[in-house]
């Protein structure tokens, strides 16, 4: 700090501290504390706000457990509150998306970092970047066109004889998973690519010379080295998927519901900001827990994620 003052003087240093304080306090900490506080207040008519009925309670959180529906698991029926189920399915399908992204991105990242001609690499990266620059809503819309019942995908598959009748693609969570995977796969690709690119190729060649089969080279050398990149990619993809509102709304079917959509409905349709806050806080809390577990499992630090 004294170093800063010596270089840039008291005024500029103070100004910089003020800017950082504005960002972290006014835009991050205080809004989140307000959200937390608000989530314990009941939803009241305007005249009652601040009155005797405006007391803290866990009522908004308890709404998560309202309205059970019957489901069955391998033929065993059980009752589950509908919002708990939505939340569980959101987490589950976000994990599915994360795994799918990893499976798609890892071979490509390895190919780009170790096999592809270094001269053609920048062009390749640029080609991959183009979809990233086209906005998310348009990418989801593109898949909405492709996956439509009378859309190009069914027409193509019918034409080459792979299927005999048109397939309904947007059923249950299928459309959502396809859309999210397409939208976020690059957030998995680039961190893994960066991690593998820093691996010394000699190590792979040495293992190859000593007779290690290809899968063992990946398991024992490439994967451990790429671990920070993989952790970073997984955390990014999971958080983006679980927090996405656009893709589940556009590519969702009648039977799919994402947790963010539930929050959106409390906020926009029910106009109950307090319950929306409670739900948003649950999402934030669970995501934080997930990230902490992922960091523990992969043994990486939060500051490594950003690389």
């Amino acid at each position: 700090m004294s170093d800063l003052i010596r270089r840039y003087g008291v005024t500029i240093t103070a100004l910089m501290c003020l800017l950082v304080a504005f960002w972290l306090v006014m835009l991050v900490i205080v809004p989140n504390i307000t959200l937390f506080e608000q989530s314990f207040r009941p939803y009241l008519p305007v005249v009652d706000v601040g009155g005797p009925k405006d007391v803290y309670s866990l009522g908004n959180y308890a709404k998560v457990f309202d309205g059970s529906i019957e489901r069955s698991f391998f033929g065993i029926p059980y009752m589950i509150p509908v919002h708990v189920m939505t939340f569980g399915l959101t987490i589950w399908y976000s994990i599915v998306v994360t795994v799918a992204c990893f499976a798609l991105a890892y071979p490509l990242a390895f190919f780009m970092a170790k096999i592809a001609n270094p001269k053609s690499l920048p062009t390749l990266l640029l080609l991959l970047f183009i979809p990233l620059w086209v906005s998310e809503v348009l990418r989801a819309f593109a898949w909405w066109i492709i996956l439509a019942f009378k859309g190009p995908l069914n027409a193509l598959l019918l034409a080459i004889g792979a299927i005999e009748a048109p397939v309904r693609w947007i059923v249950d969570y299928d459309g959502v998973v396809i859309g999210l995977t397409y939208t976020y796969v690059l957030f998995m690709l680039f961190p893994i690519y960066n991690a593998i690119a820093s691996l010394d190729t000699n190590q792979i060649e040495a293992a190859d010379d000593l007779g290690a089969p290809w899968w063992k080279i990946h398991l024992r050398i490439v994967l451990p080295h790429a671990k920070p990149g993989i952790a970073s990619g997984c955390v990014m993809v999971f958080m983006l998927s679980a927090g996405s509102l656009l893709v589940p709304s556009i590519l969702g079917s009648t039977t799919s519901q994402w947790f963010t959509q539930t929050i959106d409905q409390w906020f926009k349709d029910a106009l109950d900001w307090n319950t929306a806050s409670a739900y948003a806080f649950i999402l934030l809390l669970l995501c934080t827990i997930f990230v902490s577990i992922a960091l523990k499992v992969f043994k990486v630090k939060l500051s490594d994620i950003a690389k």
Partner: protein
Amino acid sequence: MHKLRMILARLYMGLFLVFMIAPLVVMSGAAFNDNRLPSIVPWKGWTSRWFEAMINDDRMMVAFGNTLVVAVAVAILSVIVGTASAILINSISGRVRTLLYSMMISTILIPGVVIGISTMILWTKMGNAMGTEFFLFNPGLHLSVLGQVSYIAAMVMLLVLARLQSFDAGLEEAALDLGASHAQVLRRILLPYLYPAIGAGAAVAFFQSIENYNVTQFTRGGMDTLTVYVFSMVRSGVTPAINALAFLLIMVTLVLAMIYEINRRRMARVEADREAEARRASALEEAL
């Protein structure tokens, strides 16, 4: 065996590129199809009427203008805040640094829904508490700007910080010793060195802001941005006018990418020429 694996790897690479690019092609193609629903099958002939429909769509044009204003505001604010944070982070160490840095990074991971709702609640509550009708405390795009800055600033910070790490602080010492004022040191030495990172940060912030839906959706009040408008169109009564818009946006992206690529190739060639020159020169020197 090795050869087969190489072929498979290239095939996979090709398929992946098709997977990434094909949706954009399909979307662009639908803009020219004379069909009321946006699709490329069945093909009913070429038309340019969806482009006319797009230009005559006043709401879309207003939304487009709003998007640009928001994106520019977010870019400016994020660059200022992000650069200041990077300089601050770079010059402190120990526990405080770890704490501040982790807090900054974590803003990127907070779901947009949470940012949107919390920003909205904070500012409207503050307005209620003060009993003022001042525009800052009502829902609107200015709140979207504040919400977006809260995490986009972190991205700018990371870019600037990476560049700062290779900065030679001795330059500043020299300037100070030679009698430069504090403002001069900042303006003439540090900032010019950071300009490439600041430029990249501004571009990232601009595009992130255009993309943003989650934060905007909760804070916008009644105003539209392009993303929000396109979303509402897709949900209710979509026409290929959206595809016309998408086609134009993709074209802009392509042109920018091409300019970048041509520029890069020229630079690479210049670099190669210079190296060849240097090699020739040293060979000549040795011969003499």
